[in-house]
């Protein structure tokens, strides 16, 4: 069993009228079985309303399953006494950077989590120092969060989660409100944490460029998992991905169109480098490569 496992997970959003009667239910998650290995970097894709954020909130026990079970670090989220252990095991970073920073000084915000779980003062400082170092925000420790850029704020939020020493971080569209620079900053930080500290990362996103950096990609549609595999496996099925109202990375799309037009390219090209390499070898095989190189 991996660090996070769900079995037949179902979640209904229930809308109630004024008298608290059930008006209608919206099935956000519909029978999800997923098992996430410790140390993995998993990207969850899906268009709006596919249930990916709802799934993320189950991984931190912010939502309780309507049916089925979620285990986080082998603890059942439905049992109340597990609640705080679960939230310590799986930290969560949200979309809006302004709405998740509590402290009015960067270092105080990072210390908020450890304070809540009753870590002694001396150790809080050690953890805060280490977390700020890990996300590269040490230089801003005494700044007001209001004066930071979006990417920096998200890194502070990540540091705040790291200070609780989680085994897993769930990021719910952390880059949706950031500019390209900020996005890059955040993803690089997350990747480093995954590689260096062996933290399991679950990244909810709708940017394909972020998804291809993961070890595993899960595609959700209407509350169900519809695709699951390595980025290469998932993105080589261009038509299927598109049928779920998602894009494939631009390079993949170009390779796909060229292949359709008759160029002998393999499936699942994800990066520009790989694309150039494949294209060159196709040209060389055709014997036309030499002319192209002389140009």
């Amino acid at each position, binding site marked *: 069993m991996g660090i996070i496992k769900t079995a037949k997970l179902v979640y209904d959003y229930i809308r109630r009228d004024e008298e608290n009667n059930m008006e209608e239910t919206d099935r956000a998650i519909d029978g999800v079985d997923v098992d996430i290995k410790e140390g993995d970097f998993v990207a969850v894709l899906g268009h709006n309303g596919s249930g990916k954020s709802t799934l993320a909130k189950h991984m931190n026990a912010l939502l309780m399953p309507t049916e089925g079970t979620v285990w986080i670090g082998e603890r059942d989220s439905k049992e109340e006494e597990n609640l705080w252990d679960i939230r310590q095991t799986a930290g969560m970073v949200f979309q809006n950077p*302004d709405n998740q920073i509590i402290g009015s000084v960067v270092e105080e915000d990072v210390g908020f989590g450890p304070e*809540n779980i009753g870590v002694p003062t001396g150790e809080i400082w050690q953890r805060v120092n280490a977390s700020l170092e890990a996300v590269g925000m040490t230089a801003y420790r005494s700044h007001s969060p209001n004066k930071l850029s979006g990417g920096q704020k998200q890194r502070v939020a990540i540091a705040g989660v790291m200070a609780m020493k989680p085994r897993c971080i769930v990021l719910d569209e952390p880059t949706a409100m950031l500019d390209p620079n900020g996005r890059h900053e955040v993803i690089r930080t997350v990747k480093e944490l995954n590689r260096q500290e062996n933290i399991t990362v679950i990244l909810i996103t709708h940017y394909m460029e972020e998804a291809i950096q993961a070890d595993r990609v899960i595609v959700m549609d209407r509350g169900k998992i519809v695709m699951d595999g390595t980025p290469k496996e998932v993105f080589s099925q261009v038509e299927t991905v598109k049928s779920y109202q998602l894009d494939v990375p631009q390079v993949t799309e170009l390779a796909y169109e060229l292949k359709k037009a008759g160029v002998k390219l393999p499936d699942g090209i994800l990066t520009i480098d790989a694309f150039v390499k494949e294209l060159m070898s196709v040209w060389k095989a055709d014997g036309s490569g030499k002319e192209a190189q002389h140009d």
Partner: protein
Amino acid sequence: MIRDMTLGQYYPVDSFIHKLDPRTKLFGTMVYIISLFLADGIVGYLISAVFLAIVIRVSKVPFKFIVKGIKPILFLLLFSVIFNLFLTDGDTLVSFWIFRITKQGVRLAFFMALRLVFLIMGSSMMTFTTTPNQLTDGLEKSLHFLNYIRIPVHEIAMMMSIALRFIPILIEETDKIMKAQTARGADFENGSLMQKAKGLVPLLVPLFISAFRRATDLAMAMEARCYRGGEGRTKMKPLKYQRADRLVYLFYAGYLALVVVLSKTVPL
């Protein structure tokens, strides 16, 4: 920029008073206010003035900053002076038409004005030298005993500090909404008072909705980070009295004793 605005009136310099524990300063303000009401006669006020002068000098806050704080109460000051001047019974000094100024009235008006000015200056010294967050921390710790009568001190302090953190964000948001509504033809500047008040509705409704949304998000983020109230919580920056604080408390005691004794013994 709105974002750079300092909240309250904290004056950021490095001084002995800035470094004191916020509880020491809170208590000091209380002692000072009490001393102003105990002081009687020139000598008592003279000592209060000297005390205030020492505090201002040590705090390195420019005097003109402190004087600015008196402006808003100028009207109140005038009001109290006039009333005390004309409505006090005693030995007549001057009288014209129905007005009568007495010796006691002059004395009372003068001391009342002095008391008010010292009061404002003294309490603003605390806000000049303490950040709002330190103040909240200090209040939380020194009012901790209220927990026993079931007042959730920690929760109130947490609310205060979150409110302080969100003020600049909400101000910025107000600015954004105002611009968006102006772009759609809303007019916030012209018209009668009634029209202006009505014009605020398209500003306040979206502002409140977004504030509620932020609150929901923040509550979820706090829960995700294991926040569950004040119980079992440790502090990253616990308040701790230093030697300086103890000395300052001694100083308070000396000051209070001096004011009481001299006001009672030296008649004036």
